[in-house]
């Protein structure tokens, strides 16, 4: 279960994809709050315009952040953002998580390749990155390109008023693991009730299944008990032969080939041609 494992330790990179109808920000905040409670140092970068309620939310999770509006000059903006991500990394050791909320404004200003390059530079320094992206804003190609950068991709959705997190994890060996998990978030930004989504078994009653495949007919097509017993005692001829050959040597498959006598024709096949 991917989400359950993520709660214990952050992976190198986690991408949370949400949409306008199902917001992923609560899961994003809860994850980084969890890491913060477990001793990780969290650096939070906010590029989205905050909603009016987010000020109170940030006070609850005890993070400080400042909304960053990307500057007009693209090169300067990218350099300054990359340097802000990488600043003072040496002092924080291995327990550092960089949270990016969200990648969507960056993707409006940069190409996917430029963003991927910046994120890879960050990952090379062994820093865990947790990022949010609004999946309904960007096209499929852009989102697929991000999958190559992030090791873990979580998609949030809702069904029957329950939150579901669909996770895909790319392990170091290249193996892909996926899971669907229910989850809930408390008022204290804790993720609880994480359980795997199990597909319901089909509601088929065994008693309703027919006992015989013989169709109903006015003719007598089935067998009575005596005839069933006699049929069960019949030994099929190929089984008898297999049983007898099995006693002499170990039963194993073999191909018996008898070469036929060559059918040479003394006549010249081109004899009838008038060349």
């Amino acid at each position, binding site marked *: 279960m991917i989400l359950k494992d993520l709660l214990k330790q952050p992976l190198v990179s986690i991408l949370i994809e949400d949409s306008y109808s199902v917001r992923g920000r609560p899961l994003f905040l809860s994850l980084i709050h969890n890491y913060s409670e477990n001793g990780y140092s969290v650096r939070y970068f906010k590029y989205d315009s905050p*909603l009016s309620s987010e000020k109170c939310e940030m006070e609850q999770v005890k993070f400080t952040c400042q*909304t960053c509006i*990307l500057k*007009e000059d693209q090169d300067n903006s990218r350099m300054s953002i990359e340097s802000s991500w990488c600043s003072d990394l040496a002092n924080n050791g291995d327990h550092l998580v960089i949270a990016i909320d969200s990648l*969507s*404004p960056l993707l409006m200003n940069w190409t996917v390749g430029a963003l991927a390059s910046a994120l890879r530079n960050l990952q090379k320094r062994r820093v865990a990155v947790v990022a949010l992206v609004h999946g309904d804003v*960007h096209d499929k190609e852009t989102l697929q390109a991000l999958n190559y950068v992030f090791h873990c991709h979580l998609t949030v959705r809702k069904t029957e008023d329950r939150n579901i997190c669909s996770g895909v994890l790319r392990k170091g060996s290249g193996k892909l693991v996926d899971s669907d998990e229910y989850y809930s978030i408390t008022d204290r930004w804790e993720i609880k009730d994480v359980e795997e989504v199990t597909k319901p078994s089909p509601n088929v009653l065994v008693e309703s299944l027919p006992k015989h495949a013989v169709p109903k007919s006015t003719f007598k097509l089935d067998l009575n008990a005596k005839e069933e017993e006699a049929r069960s005692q019949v030994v099929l001829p190929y089984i008898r032969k297999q049983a007898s050959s099995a006693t002499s040597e170990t039963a194993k498959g073999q191909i018996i080939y008898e070469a036929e006598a060559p059918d040479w024709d003394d006549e010249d096949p081109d004899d009838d041609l008038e060349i």
Partner: protein
Amino acid sequence: MADTVMKALMLDKIQIDGKSVLIVQHSDGSPFLHSLLTHSARQGRRICLVSFNQLVGYYHSVGTRLGWNLNNLLSKNQAAFIGGLHTLKDSFQFHCPSNPFNFLFNSTTCPLQAIFLAIESVIVGWIGQPFSLVIDELDCLLNLGIEPKAMIQFFQKCHSLIQTHSNGSLIVSIGVTPLDKEIIQCSTLLSHWSDLILTERGLQTGKSRDLTGTLTVKWNVSPFSEQDFHFKCFDRGIKMFAPGTAVL
């Protein structure tokens, strides 16, 4: 009629201060923008109206039918109008550096910076008083050659201006056409950043005598609700109905 609209949007119980409202218009016209303008005027809020498509006379004319006088508010400095059409005409003639549309002739300067500065200079004069910054048809900027990233940045700057002054509200309307990918991308991104999203659509089956269209009201903050309504536009307001109750 304005009261029923505000009740449907829950703005009779929820304060609009510090909040952003996005009106996504899939059909022509902006009846709900005028309703929110009327609501702001009746509450005594200062109004900074930015329009790229209409003259001040249009808003005055509609406002008069809805019960408020824009020209009166403009004369008392309780409202300000930043009109795109006149300033655009002047920018063609005079090439003034401080003209908000100077960016059309000078690609090296930051587009929309001058418009934002014009808005900021109006808002700064109203510090401490409740105000509404209303931007009509933001999608017109794309038609003027502005890139989507610049338009998004302009929205973020206006949004941060509102949040700096906690008694301000931001009301933005944006027209959407299904085939325009850029505007759909921008409107979807702005929907993630707005507290209240009103999505106006025409009827799927065509025109109707009883209804003008459908409205989806979604709150991204408390009460976190999403509701669908039908509405009918009249000369002096809008009537709102629960789906299926228009002819009752």
